[in-house]
């Protein structure tokens, strides 16, 4: 029996799960930062107007 597909599958699953788990908070932080920056810019614009 050829074991290669199982080994490849296991490491692909590992890459997928670990990448997703690591990237999720990074992306959320980036989105949050953009939101906060937008809000601050709007508020600054409202104050100067």
């Amino acid at each position, binding site marked *: 029996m050829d*074991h290669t597909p199982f*080994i490849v599958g296991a490491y692909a*699953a590992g890459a997928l799960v670990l990448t*997703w788990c690591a990237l*999720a908070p990074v992306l959320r932080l980036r989105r*949050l930062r953009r939101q*906060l920056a937008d809000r*601050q810019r709007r508020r600054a614009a409202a104050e100067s107007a």
Partner: protein
Amino acid sequence: MSTVKRIFHQFGSPPWLFRFAGFAIPWLWAACLGLGAWGLWWGLVKAPPDYLQGESVRIMYLHVPSAWMSMGIYAGMAVFGFCALVWRVRAAEVIALASAPVGAAFTLLALVTGSLWGRPTWGTYWVWDARLTSELVLLFLYLGVMGLAAAFDEPRKGARAACLLALVGLVNLPLIHYSVEWWNTLHQPASVGVEGSSIHPSMLWPLLLMALATKFYYLANLLTRTRLQLVVENRKSRWVRDWVLETR
């Protein structure tokens, strides 16, 4: 003020922790990727196939560290949960809660790789083997902690409830582990004892490297999640506003 609380206060001041994490994360990632690449090369290229299991033994270099991490992170989560409950330290709550998804990911990975290893070895994807069953129960425990934390409206209340549950789970975990192991020997007297066989020296080094790499992965991931939580909680404070406007 107790020593534990003082330590947490020193290292738990949000802006300080945020900056420290931002500085440390790249180095942790570098260590994780470096060690991981080295370990993978050793395990996938240099190490010989096992004479009983054949090539499929290479899955072990991912499966075993994942299983170790899944249990280690649970213990860590419960210890931080204990600190959070006894000394009411917010930083400990954050760390305990941020650990849960990472631990759950490793548990899931241990299950997936375990069953992918089982197909060529046992001829089936799932066997109610002691370790796989324990991992499955552990996954349920993680999901319970995460689900409980998310179910509350007030985040701090949810965090403390989850910490308490993690602690209860930690007390039960050894009982679950041993009872499942014992149950397994009861029902499968002649189970495939390959996994239990002692580690061959040629496996030791890549295994160790991969175990170290996963530890750095956990630390980096944990600090990233902590950073996210710190910003969420302090979105109105001065230092977050400054950070938001910093040029990237």
